């Protein structure tokens, strides 16, 4: 696959980010059914399946170059978005190895990795990088290994140490998050960092998910989709920057709702890491405006139904009350009420 990058796209101020037709079909639409409720929606992360976003271990798309630049800007303004606690050094190298090996294997036209013993050479063509370094020797890279490689990947990443039958979020690169603070969460355990989520604790979702993750096996990663909605194609919706993006919610009108309101989907992947026995959590964020989503008829209809019938606690938690009704009204005329197939597949081969 050859990717046509769009290096000048922006995720702030003038928001020039758009999805090509191919990118819309590539979008991991998150609703297999007409209703949405929290569940342990985890499945093996194997190639192929209902969305083309599953075709590669780490998905790279047309927004890659622009997203890496956006990440660099966020880090320049707030370096604390990337932090790793000292006991996670082995996990840093594990992450670098996992990303480099899989990017090089999945996208040979764009990335290459060659090894002569511990001496590794990494080439990232889209970003114009060529780096030789000694694996395991942090001083041979321009910055620590976890930061080095996650600056060159789309989506956020966190590192979970496993101890005392729990997971602790002891490292992360978090610049494209949906309203949660890594600086606040670092060092917390699984139930602590999930504290603010409504309904799911009572349903036992987090108890079961944690047990499942504690048993996660090396070589057998898993994935789940999570979603929310964001005004404008803004990647950095962090609590730290709430004053910058919060007011955007008031800018939605019935006239602009189709372009302004974006379905924000996170393709979350979880990998057991070998040296550290830690878990790497990838949170790959996809944005598509309602107008873009509705170009796939099945998705437009289903999104209408999910938003129309959404549980009020989930609506409030995700911060949707100001514009949810406008989104429902925008989508309603597109929904003829026809029965839709189970699953997230678009059922289209081209747009």
């Amino acid at each position, binding site marked *: 696959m050859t990717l046509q990058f769009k290096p000048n796209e922006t995720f702030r101020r003038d928001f020039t980010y758009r999805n090509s037709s191919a990118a819309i079909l590539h979008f991991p639409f998150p609703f297999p059914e007409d209703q949405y409720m929290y569940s342990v929606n985890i499945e093996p992360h194997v190639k192929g399946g209902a969305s083309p976003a599953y075709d590669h271990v780490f998905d790279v798309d047309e927004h890659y170059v622009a997203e890496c630049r956006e990440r660099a800007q966020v880090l320049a303004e707030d370096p604390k978005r990337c932090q790793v606690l000292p*006991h996670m050094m082995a996990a840093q190298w594990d992450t670098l190895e996992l990303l480099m090996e899989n990017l090089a294997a999945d996208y040979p036209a764009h990335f290459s990795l060659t090894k002569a013993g511990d001496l590794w050479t990494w080439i990232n063509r889209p970003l114009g990088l060529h780096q030789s370094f000694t694996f395991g020797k942090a001083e041979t890279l321009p910055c620590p290994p976890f930061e080095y490689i996650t600056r060159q990947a789309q989506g956020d990443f966190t590192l979970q140490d496993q101890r005392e039958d729990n997971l602790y979020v002891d490292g992360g690169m978090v610049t494209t998050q949906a309203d949660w603070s890594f600086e606040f969460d670092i060092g917390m355990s699984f139930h602590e960092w999930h504290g603010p989520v409504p309904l799911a604790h009572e349903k036992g979702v987090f108890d079961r998910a944690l047990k499942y993750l504690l048993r996660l096996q090396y070589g057998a990663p898993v994935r789940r989709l999570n979603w929310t909605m964001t005004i404008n194609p803004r990647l950095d919706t962090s609590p730290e920057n709430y004053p910058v993006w919060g007011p955007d919610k008031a800018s939605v009108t019935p006239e602009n709702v189709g372009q302004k309101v974006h379905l924000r989907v996170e393709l979350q992947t979880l990998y057991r890491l070998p040296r550290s026995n830690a878990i790497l959590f990838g949170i790959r964020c996809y944005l598509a405006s309602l107008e873009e989503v509705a170009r796939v008829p099945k998705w437009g209809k289903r999104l209408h139904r999910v938003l129309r019938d959404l549980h009020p606690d989930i609506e409030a938690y995700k911060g949707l009350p100001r514009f949810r009704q406008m989104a429902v009204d925008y989508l309603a005329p597109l929904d003829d009420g026809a029965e839709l197939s189970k699953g997230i597949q678009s059922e289209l081969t081209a747009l």
Partner: protein
Amino acid sequence: MIASGPIPVRIHEIEQLSPTLKRFAFAPLHGGALPTPSAGAHVLVTLRHEGRVMKNAYSLVSPPESRERYEIIVRHVAQSRGGSRFLHQSVARGDVIEIGVPGNLFPLASKARKHLLIAGGIGITPLLSYVPALKARGARFELHQLCTADEAPVFEKLLAPHAAGEDIFIHGNGRAAFDLAGILARQPLGTHVYTCGPRALMDAVITSAAALGWPAGKIHRESFGDASGGLPFKAVLAKSGIEVQVADNQTLLEALEAQGIAAPCLCRGGACGECKLEVLDGEVEHRDDFLSAAEKASQKFIMPCVSRARTAQVVLDF
């Protein structure tokens, strides 16, 4: 590394370490690199002999950075279930066998201020991968190996490449002369203890450490986990009348899929609830985290991705 099934490997080297110990080195059959192993990891080795299939878990003794070859050490046990005898007597250099992706239920603790390693006999094996990893991390550790007097030189030789300047001790005079409580008592705060070897030794380490007030989270014993299999059984699908045999090393879900039956599933690990089926007859050995205690007790449901029948047959409303 993303796995895609078992890994075929060639027996690259066999070394007789003692009358009952052999070291086997495996290299990937098709070249390239094996998955990165971790300190303390084990692999499941599949052995096929005279129509029998045996799966045995062995700790990797090669250092974690070794991806050109893995090494295991196997003791020939007189009353062996077959695996160790087969490896000792029937496997030769150049043979091809299958191994699984390394798993690790005995990992190093990342926050330990010091690591205290106590092994007995062949229990040394996971520690042989620990030591180079600890040295590479610059971590503080102390290793005690208990063994019989005749085997002391064998273990000394195995540890020799790592031993210079380290706190590595070999105790060849048996348990009686080994001051376990004294060693545990003089460890600095923040030490983690790891033990591997005969059950009696591991139990002694765990009870002594607990008695001295060590927190449970700082005491680690080696484990290969529960084998996922169990006794074979038959599942009868009431709606279609189809009968499915579930083999000992297979889940009910896998057996249904092998018959081309599209059974619902998602997580394949007993957590999501997607695969739930109703049980009309037979008893279930529940292994999932999804059903409530009351649902489990009712014996009305089964999660085919992990749970099995306790009876020879179960009838499902499917």
